[in-house]
């Protein structure tokens, strides 16, 4: 296509749709300059080695090869998946239950909707430290209660399984309010007649949930799961201030590894390569979820 024609077409579009383009311009400029461009740079940096106080050199895929050859990095990815599955498995059912309860016609249930949002309002670094002090072997109330119940001392940040449980419970606690809010938003949009007609058809509580509630909140559930997935995958500060990735590398999720490489060791190349892997993983999950919801819609 000759360029003059395309530019003329561009000008035509610009004059015809000037207002919406102008309205979108600030957001687009900010996002292109400060988000899209750095996203490109991360790919660039991942192919280079940038020593402190020196010029960077092109190293091809060396950073990726190094990472994939490491037991540690494979463990980082496994830890991230374990963390993600744990958080979703714990927070989504809890959020669903909470959403149904706060949207019910009970008097006063609405107050709980506000109360339940508290974990979302607290800074992750603060809740991490609170959780850490709660499971302290000598002064934590949770360890004290468990010791009283079982006669055993639970070393939450020492035993690998308990350390994973600690970061999962902490993150699920932080994540469930936002999920609840989204799901509750979907629930309020369902008209009560649908339940009434389901009841007329003889549907029990489970059938009502299965055939009315769940399908009609599917979009909200999708947004909730997607958001929490991405937030959990990239979480660094929550896990780092709780366990620093320990014991060993058991809770060193990819976000924590990235934080350590980029901000503690200044290994920009490796840090960027991990960033690229995280971005690709996020895109993979988005596609996966879109497929699932797409399949659900065509049913």
């Amino acid at each position: 296509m000759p360029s003059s024609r395309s530019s003329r077409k561009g000008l035509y579009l610009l004059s015809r749709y000037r207002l919406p383009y102008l309205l979108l311009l600030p957001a687009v400029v900010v996002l292109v300059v400060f988000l899209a461009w750095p996203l490109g740079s991360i790919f660039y940096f991942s192919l280079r080695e940038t020593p402190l106080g020196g010029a960077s050199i092109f190293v091809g895929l060396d950073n990726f090869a190094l990472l994939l050859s490491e037991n540690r990095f494979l463990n980082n990815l496994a830890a991230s998946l374990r963390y993600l599955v744990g958080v979703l498995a714990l927070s989504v059912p809890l959020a669903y239950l909470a959403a149904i309860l706060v949207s019910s016609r009970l008097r006063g249930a609405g107050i709980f909707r506000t109360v339940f949002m508290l974990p979302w309002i607290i800074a992750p670094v603060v809740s991490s430290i609170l959780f850490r002090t709660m499971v302290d072997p000598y002064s934590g109330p949770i360890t004290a209660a468990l010791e009283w119940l079982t006669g055993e001392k639970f070393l939450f940040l020492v035993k690998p399984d308990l350390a994973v449980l600690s970061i999962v419970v902490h993150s699920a606690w932080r994540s469930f309010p936002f999920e609840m809010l989204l799901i509750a938003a979907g629930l309020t949009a369902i008209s009560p007649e649908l339940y009434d007609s389901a009841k007329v058809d003889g549907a029990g509580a489970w059938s009502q949930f299965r055939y009315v509630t769940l399908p009609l909140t599917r979009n909200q559930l999708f947004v909730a799961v997607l958001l929490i997935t991405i937030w959990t995958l990239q979480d660094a500060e929550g896990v780092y201030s709780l366990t620093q990735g320990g014991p060993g590398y058991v809770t060193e999720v990819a976000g924590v590894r990235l934080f350590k490489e980029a901000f503690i060791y200044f290994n920009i190349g490796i840090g960027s390569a991990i960033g690229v892997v995280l971005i690709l993983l996020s895109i993979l999950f988005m596609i996966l979820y879109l497929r699932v919801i797409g399949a659900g819609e065509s049913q």
Partner: protein
Amino acid sequence: MGNRRLNRRQLLRIGTLGLAGLGLGACTGATATTAPAAEAPPAAAAEPVTIKWAHYFDPLQSPAQKFNFEWMERMASTFEADHPEVKIEPEYFDWDRIDDRAIMDFEAGIKHDVVFGSPQLMAKHFEVGDFIDLAPYMAGWSDEEKTDLAWSPVWASGSNGDVQIAVPTGVHTRSLAYRRDMFEAAGLDPDTPLTSLDECLAAAQALTTDDVYGLGMSFGPARGTIELYFGPLIWHFGGELWDPEAKEASFASEAGIQAANFIHDLVYTHKVTPESAIGGTYDDAILVAFLEGRLAMGWGFGSYWIVSLEEGGFVKGCFPATDACAVDTGGVMVTPTAPGAQFTNGWTLSVHALSEHPQEAFTFMEHLIKPDSLYDFPDAGLPARLSLWDRPEFQSDFYQTWLEAAGKGRPMPATVHYAELADTAAACLQEILVMEEPVEDTLTRFQDEYNSKYAGK
């Protein structure tokens, strides 16, 4: 629809909030922009030179910091009195980030003058070049003056050939703190120091009861795990954490295996060291546990904790040091590892490479390390100057034990990637302990992963 529209009162409320925000925004905005202005060189020659002093005493952290602040204020005001053309401006950085900030700010072009630093990270400072060589400024120093400061390993960390980028302000070393009353109760003589690991283990076993662990150590996810426990034990068994010739990690040696096994057995076989030490912080595992009576002996007890021994009533008249310093229910002994198998460090002072007034900065540094200035520097731990040790208040057995411990110490490996090395070795030890993985394979795996990235650097 109607209920969605805000009524007047609600709009007013939002408006007020917004205005309040603008007002606050305006005033904070102003303070935010004054920072770069302060960095600019003085416009008129009559204005004093400003020397920024980067320190790590968090003004918020705890009221106990007031001693450090009083010392800082006195240092600044006495210096300003002698040098009216210079103004001292303290600037705070997190204690575990101060070295990184000096490096990052050097790269970003942000200027500092006098900066506190850590010996373990001097190799990185040498590599980046964010601290100037002080040797030309010290040309006028007498040999006496130099040897007075150069006796501890802290000085050596800042040297590379003739280049000197840091000078010590104190000595942080560690010893084995122990409960004299518990020794007596267990039938042990509190006045006979333990001299070998075997003796130490036997004592720990005798001291362990239902409520008390015989020997406290700390293997948390922190540098202390390497600096105070795993590292010194590897040195004790004749190995090295890092090979300075090949410039690569070497902890997966016979000595490394012995050290890891020794630690593993303390926790799981002899059960004289609490398993909780693998997850907690160094302070909780050693200081707090010792003060609360949960430990009979605390390995890696820092010279910066002498104040706590005094406050806890374990020693009397030792902080601040007096010539009546005497032990009571607790005492310290030199860690029973082989000579040289012990870590000694301390805070150092350097001049930032972007300083516009290096001469004034150095003169201020000299003021800070004068014997009388260092003498009551609260965070010194122990005196950095050998001549100060001749004073009567340091002649007690208690302080002489600390001097012996400090002299026995050595610095951490001088690698640019010290942080990675220490964290790798700590994670390795933790995996060996909690996952019961084969010792030799695990050490080798972690060492190989480290060397595949950093060998030769």
